């Protein structure tokens, strides 16, 4: 948990307590964005519930882009700009995290929790790569495209395998 100063204005103290100047984080949204971009997905979503400013900043694509890149295996250094436009076209980094990367990370963490008895042959593969996540994302995006003439669409289900079942007994 980060220690942040309370987000309300305080009078600047001059020469006061140890001479430190307080810096309300809410004054600088870009700085806030930088900070939030270092969180993991769940914490970032929680942070978006703090106040309207944090919610707005927490929805910025740049923030979620940083989060995504932090959590996926770095593949070949592709053209970052190109990636951005493609991801934006497919639905954005926030959606990418919510639909693909987040569940994938949860799934892998769950598998790791089950113990080291898990096969070692694919131990190197127990991380998510950006290309894989984008592939799954693109399939999901494709499924959501409407058909011609608005025919009844099947709900997109290609990512169901990543979902955790909820026990509703």
């Amino acid at each position, binding site marked *: 948990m980060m220690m942040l100063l309370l987000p309300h204005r305080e009078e600047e103290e001059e020469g006061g307590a140890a001479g430190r100047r307080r810096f309300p984080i809410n004054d600088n949204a870009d700085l806030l964005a930088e900070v939030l971009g270092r969180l993991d997905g769940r914490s970032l979503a929680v942070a978006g519930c703090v106040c309207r400013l944090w919610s707005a900043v927490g929805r910025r694509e740049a923030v979620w882009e940083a989060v995504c890149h932090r959590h996926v295996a770095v593949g070949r250094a592709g053209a970052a700009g190109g990636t951005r436009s493609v991801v934006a076209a497919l639905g954005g980094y926030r959606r990418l995290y919510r639909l693909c990367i987040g569940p994938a990370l949860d799934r892998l963490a769950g598998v790791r929790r089950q113990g080291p008895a898990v096969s070692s042959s*694919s131990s190197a593969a127990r991380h998510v790569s950006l290309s894989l996540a984008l592939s799954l994302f*693109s399939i999901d*995006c*494709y499924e959501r495209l409407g*058909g011609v003439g608005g025919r009844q669409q099947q709900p997109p289900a*290609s990512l169901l395998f990543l979902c*955790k079942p909820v*026990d509703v007994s």
Partner: protein
Amino acid sequence: MKREHEDAGRMGGDDPMAMGPEIAKGKMVPVMRTGDEMECGVDELLAALGYKVRASDMADVAQKLAQLEVAMSSDDASHLPQLAADTVHYDPSDLYAWLDSMLSELNAPPCAQLLPPTATASRGNGHSSTAAKPSAAAPPRASALHDFKPVVSAASVGRVVCDTEQQSEKILSPRDPKRMRTCSSSSSSSSAKEVASSLKSATEALPVVVVDTQETGVRLVHALLASAEAVQQENLKAADALLKQISMLAASQSGPMRKVAGYFAEALARRIYRHSPLPQADRVALDLLHSHFYESAPYLKFAHFTANQAILEAFTSFRQVHVIDFGLKQGMQWPALLQALALRPGGPPSFRLTGIGPPQPDNSDALQEVGWKLSMLAESIGIDFHFRGFVASSLADLEPQMLLEPEGKRRDRDGVEEAVAVNSVMELHQLLARPGAMEKVLGTVRALRPRIVTVVEEEANHNGRTFLERFTEALHYYSSMFDSLENGGDSGADGELEEQQRHRAMADAYLGRQICNVVASEGTDRTERHETLGRWRGRMAQAGFEPVHLGSNAFKQASMLLALYAGGDGFRVEEAEGCLTLGWHTRPLIATSAWRVGPAADFAL
């Protein structure tokens, strides 16, 4: 894993002391033989195998055999040469006394925990679940031996069963040892065979099968095989009688085994009563089933991802690319490729897709819809996309000029021809139903001069010459398949999303149709003519193609994809001479391979 079956053969029939390290745990099954003498007080069914065991001693026999195994497997091999060299002969049919002597020799340590039973020949009966209950299952196992009921069956049926057991054992044994490895307990089925064959006289080739608590599962399998053999021998009455037995036994099973038995029984019934083959369900329904299968199991995703990786690598540095998809269906393979092309270093190429599909009954243009959706996606990610749909009831109707017209191969501004890729996911095997179709299609493919041809096929031999061969292979294959569907998702303990269950039901129906086709159809109707990777390799090589190794990128991506499936370790991605296979536990079920036109240019078109 060493082949216990072959070891049994090598050991011969006369040396009762030459036991391998894995010894039977007293798991004998009732072989349904009639006409064997019944000795009073002796268990009738074991007597059929040549063992004289008093019914009262059964529990002790089981326990002692278990102890024996523990003793022998826990100690190192030091005991074994001693045993092998031991020339004292005990009457092997007096199992009780013999075991006693063995145990007193070895001075087996008191073993408190009996080893868990294994789900052996009951294929696909959730063997992953049986491995989890050691001691709880031990007492029931002993009592199960007491529960032998003589099987009420006609003598002819009994004989039929025996014969098929012989054949089935030969086929089962290579598989069973592999299956045993995944269970936590040691193998017993093959070792039981070993014990039995080494103790039996050479003339009687009585096969031995293993029993466990799920003896009905074993009986069910045998009944299915017996029925199939009866069908092959045109003994329809016996086959019919067996079918009734099968449905009764199937009702006692649960999970994947029950479904498999149900579908196979239905298919056999269709064959016996010469029902018309399954009506050609309209394409919409078939597509629906296919897309549910796509969602409920990783096989199709694996196929698409590995094929896409091969195509992507073949397309590097080309500015104009053309993909010909032999079975477009819903086009689920292509969004991922489009995305990958959009992100490739150097920018995306100009992409043309030719999709081939079967004629639709209601004249709706499904291909155009798919093309439209794909073009929407491509436009949003900035790819210059062209689509062409082709309706063809069979791939053999295609001509190379049709696929490349109107302007032949496109050329980019440097005059370089476009790169063509041909993609076939589970489409080629259907051509084997008509003679000559395969050669024509492969010739057409070669005439297109593609940079790469990706072929994904089921890894099974469902095109054997005899019906029984096909039936047995199909039984194995679909048992694994259904087992993977059942256990490959989240472990059923947590319950599944209702939607996932619906998908699975549809996926089951999809596979059920395949089963029906393999079993009940013949001639040109039988389109599910799966063949193994080896045969496809030979066929492609003969047609003038040479293999392209799928790189490590494809392997890594496939492994990562499979790691995301909750069933996790059940699925195995393996690489075999440049081809990738995905399997369930040790059984490969689907194989991807890539090809390009070979240098030899003297093949007649």
